[in-house]
């Protein structure tokens, strides 16, 4: 137990140090705070799984109106200035660059909100 605590404390102490020394932490601007489809930790960990299963059901079985949808991600999270989830500071790109995870959804999907008026203002 003691070893675990020491380990935890070390981890807690070390994380900010490492972050400060290496790549800067992502600077995210949440355009529409507090109303995502799931709590933030779950979204951080599982958004790709949610989207993957939605994508297969929508594409192959024709099920529409699923809970997770890229279009809805954009409508809430696209930057109010650029209208996009990409670019420096973009909601998707900022974390993906930090974590060095390739982001290819937007090679085919439209990264900008379809309706410019809808950018980041969904209730």
């Amino acid at each position, binding site marked *: 137990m003691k070893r675990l605590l020491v380990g935890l404390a070390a981890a807690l102490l070390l994380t900010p140090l490492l972050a400060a020394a290496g790549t800067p932490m992502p600077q995210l601007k949440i355009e529409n705070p507090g109303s995502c489809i799931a709590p933030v930790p779950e979204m951080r960990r599982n958004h790709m799984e949610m989207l993957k*299963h939605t*994508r*297969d*059901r929508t*594409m*192959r*079985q*024709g*099920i*529409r*109106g*699923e809970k997770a949808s890229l*279009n809805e991600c*954009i409508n809430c999270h696209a930057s109010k200035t650029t209208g996009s989830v990409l670019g420096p500071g973009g909601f998707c790109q900022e974390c993906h660059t930090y974590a060095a995870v390739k982001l290819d959804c937007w*090679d*085919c*999907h*439209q990264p900008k909100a*379809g309706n410019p008026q809808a950018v980041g203002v969904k209730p």
Partner: protein
Amino acid sequence: MSEDRIENKSRRSFVGAAAVAGAGVGVAALAPGLKLIEVAGAAPRAPGEPASSAVRWGMLIDTTKCASGCDACVKACATENGINETVKDARQGSQWIRKIDLKDPKTGQEHSLPMLCQHCEHPPCVDVCPTGASMKRADGIVLVDRHICIGCRYCMMACPYKARSLVHMPLTEQNPLVPRGQGCVEACTFCVHRVDRGQEPACVEACPEKAMLFGNLNDPASEIAQRVAKEKTTQVRADLKLNLGVRYQGI
């Protein structure tokens, strides 16, 4: 393998759900004289409801009405599906629907007609696709799952109607409802995003001569089923026995 398991599981839960819904409809909701199959074809599907094989989407094109030189359907398709890239070589551009002019060399008789993916019941593109990207939805619409397509173009070689194209360059400014991208094969989707909302394909809506008719071939009450039953229609290359979703009249 894990994909298979997901599909099987959801198929089972769908069958369960359908049985329950069917029982409910049979007892209470169905109006007198209204057949279940009509309900299936008419309204947009409710959110969460999968496409059903009670529906077979089809198109009837009356070539006697189709004017030579008119390409309203081609333009409407490009606008609707965001096909707007400029290509150096026109042969490399995407073509979901095109106008073709036919002439019988013996009689001199001429036809002009739109040609698009025929949404075959037994699609050769699906048979040859090595990845499972080419697929047919339960309601007969043949699609390419671009998440899986590797751009090998087997399907383009197998399709007897030259209905498919490969996207050669990176794309931007796609229609949010119609994702498209480099390295994937694509073809007419019957405007599946519109059909699922209860609308008809963009080309059908745009035709100034009303030469195109879209509907549910499985519903005996639909206009398309009645016309196909009454009038003589042609499947292009009917000898291939693919049972096409698109039929022509007047050729």
